[in-house]
């Protein structure tokens, strides 16, 4: 029994001591927690873990970086939950669409007010990218990378079906139909893959069809998301889903990269990181790229990208150093090698970036539009997904679902 008590005592003592030990160790070095959504087994994550962080730690003795990878949607939720749990990281890589929401919660540091050398740091980055961090006259982040989506198509499949790369939406509809069907094994193939039904996925269609999500001021949705052009885009999309031309957003579908790599999806709309991913997992697949087909609204893709932001609870000095490092020429050039388009002016001029052929993406960015930059976007996006699901399953017509959604959005935008 003595031993029993002893074990218990030791264990309790350990539980008490652990945090103390941790605090002791922290006395010598500062650890910055950095959350991101580079996927865990990607080239980007390897560059981050094996190249960038070691380089940063060597440059800045006394600062350690604890990088934590979350899945994209989970990162958003974790930040919101942790804000209440006082467990926020110091720095996070945030989707540009999240910043208004985080800013509204009051968890972000206004960098232009707090950092004396903010002007110098932001001056090295593209002004257009920096504008994503500007909310209510203050800058809450540094731009980290930018992107947009373009069409990736499987060359062999288009050739076999005798289909030209679609340049217009009408041609695209035909192409999706012709590319869908069965392959030699009798397996179903689809002309188009769309991995989700969120704004990131459907916006390019709405815009290219000439529609809009909200008015210019982002204060009203009725007449826009349920306007004729947006409804037509959604009807067209849902029609192709029902015909068996589009899939990818269902739980049982083949994941996007695997399906494209194994010739089950002929086309997809994806960002610059896809090239590195395909080169790693399916090096044999021959593919080409093209801008999103033009409709009545032109060829309009969606503007993506990430900013790097600092939270209120951060160790500001160390966090700022890390943010400047990540947006510096060296880090941006390294990340450019695995599909992250830099926003650092010097990195953009480097040979690596010029060799990486981001031209089609940079061209797409010129005409791309941003998702609504409002604090309620995440909630609006959830509503959009539910509405789109009702349309593709035939539960509601596109007009009904969008009318309901518009009313819901109007309330959120007030």
């Amino acid at each position: 029994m003595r031993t029993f008590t002893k074990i218990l005592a030791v264990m309790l003592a350990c539980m008490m001591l652990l945090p103390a030990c941790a605090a002791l160790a922290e006395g010598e070095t500062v650890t910055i927690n950095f959350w991101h959504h580079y996927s865990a087994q990607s080239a980007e994550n390897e560059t981050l873990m094996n190249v960038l962080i070691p380089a940063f730690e060597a440059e800045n003795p006394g600062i350690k970086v604890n990088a934590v990878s979350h899945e994209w949607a989970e990162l958003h939720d974790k930040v919101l939950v942790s804000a209440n749990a006082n467990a926020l990281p110091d720095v996070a890589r945030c989707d540009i669409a999240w910043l208004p929401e985080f800013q509204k919660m009051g968890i972000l540091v206004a960098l232009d007010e707090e950092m004396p050398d903010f002007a110098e740091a932001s001056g090295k980055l593209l002004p257009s990218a920096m504008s994503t961090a500007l909310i209510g006259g203050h800058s809450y982040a540094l731009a980290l990378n930018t992107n947009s989506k373009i069409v990736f198509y499987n060359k062999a499949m288009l050739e076999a079906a005798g289909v030209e790369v679609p340049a217009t939406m009408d041609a695209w509809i035909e192409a999706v139909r012709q590319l869908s069907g069965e392959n030699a094994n009798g397996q179903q193939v689809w002309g188009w893959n769309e991995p989700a039904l969120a704004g990131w996925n459907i916006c390019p269609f709405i815009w290219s069809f000439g529609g809009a999500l909200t008015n210019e001021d982002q204060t009203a949705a009725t007449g826009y998301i349920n306007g004729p052009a947006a409804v037509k885009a959604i009807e067209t999309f849902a029609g192709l889903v029902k015909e068996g031309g589009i899939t990818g957003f269902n739980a049982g579908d083949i994941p996007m990269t695997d399906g494209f790599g194994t010739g089950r999806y002929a086309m997809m709309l994806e960002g610059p990181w896809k090239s590195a991913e395909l080169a790693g997992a399916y090096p044999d697949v021959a593919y080409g790229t093209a801008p999103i087909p033009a409709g009545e609204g032109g060829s309009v893709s969606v503007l993506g990208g990430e900013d790097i932001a600092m939270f209120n609870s951060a160790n500001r000095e160390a966090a700022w150093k890390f943010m400047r490092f990540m947006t510096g020429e060296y880090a941006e050039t390294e990340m450019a090698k695995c599909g992250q388009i830099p926003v650092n002016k010097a990195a953009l001029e480097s040979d690596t970036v010029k060799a990486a052929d981001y031209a089609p993406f940079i061209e797409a960015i010129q005409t791309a539009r941003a998702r609504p930059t409002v604090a309620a976007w995440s909630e609006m996006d959830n509503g959009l997904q539910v509405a789109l699901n009702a349309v593709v399953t035939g539960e509601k017509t596109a007009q009904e679902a969008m009318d309901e959604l518009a009313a819901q959005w109007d309330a959120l935008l007030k």
Partner: protein
Amino acid sequence: MKRKNAARIRSAALRYLLLAVGTVIFTLPMIYMISTSLRPNGALYEYPPRFFPRWEALTAENYGYILHQSKFYLNFLNSVIVSLSTIALAAAIGSAMAFVLGKFKSRATGILFGFIIITMIIPGTTMIVPQFELATRLGLVNKLWGLIPFYVAWVIPFSTFMIKGFMENIPGEIMEAAWIDGADVWTVYTRVALPLASPAIASVSIFNFLTAWEEYPWANTVINDSSKRTLPIAIAGFFGQHQFTQWGYVFAMSVLTLIPVVLIFIFCQKFFVQGLTAGSVKG
């Protein structure tokens, strides 16, 4: 007589046949998991799909990746620390409560026991919101050891319930003898009750181990750092990258996670059955 024998043989044959079919159904998913973990990721979408990989295609590369490239050993260690701490604390606290509640019966202890039992009815996950708030206030979010008090609190009702049944069956004379010798409560608990109740404690501990080893919702909610993740969250995290699921890695990690559990189960089978049936037969 002969006809009766033939009927008996036929009935036995039918039993074995049905049991064999059942066994195949029970094990197929697990075998498929193991077989998937042994093939290269590229072969996962081969056509036609195969239940067993081709002999030439067998590979241990998924295991190599998990053991060398991922933080598996860290996740494993985290799970071991949390599970062992949970069962040690639960055994100490649960047996002490069971001893008092089982051997010093009064109105008060009866009410207390009833109260503890009632909380067993509430599904654990329903309390995740207030428990998260509590963890926040106590600063237990994103701390590995912060999982332990919650796990212990969850398993205490069951542990107390099980061990109490055993304590009650300790013959009164043994304790009487100790009292007459002038022993105090503490001595009787440690010298008499604990050794006699050790089989019950062992079987409870196995169940508690399983609970802590596989717990997912709570750990996934409060743990952020990848170096603090326990095995279930680590596996789910591997799966999470939805555009590109590497099933080979997922299942290699799953197999490695299941090995200790299966070993414990096979070697401690007796305690398992004992623990399960004690609750049900008593009703």
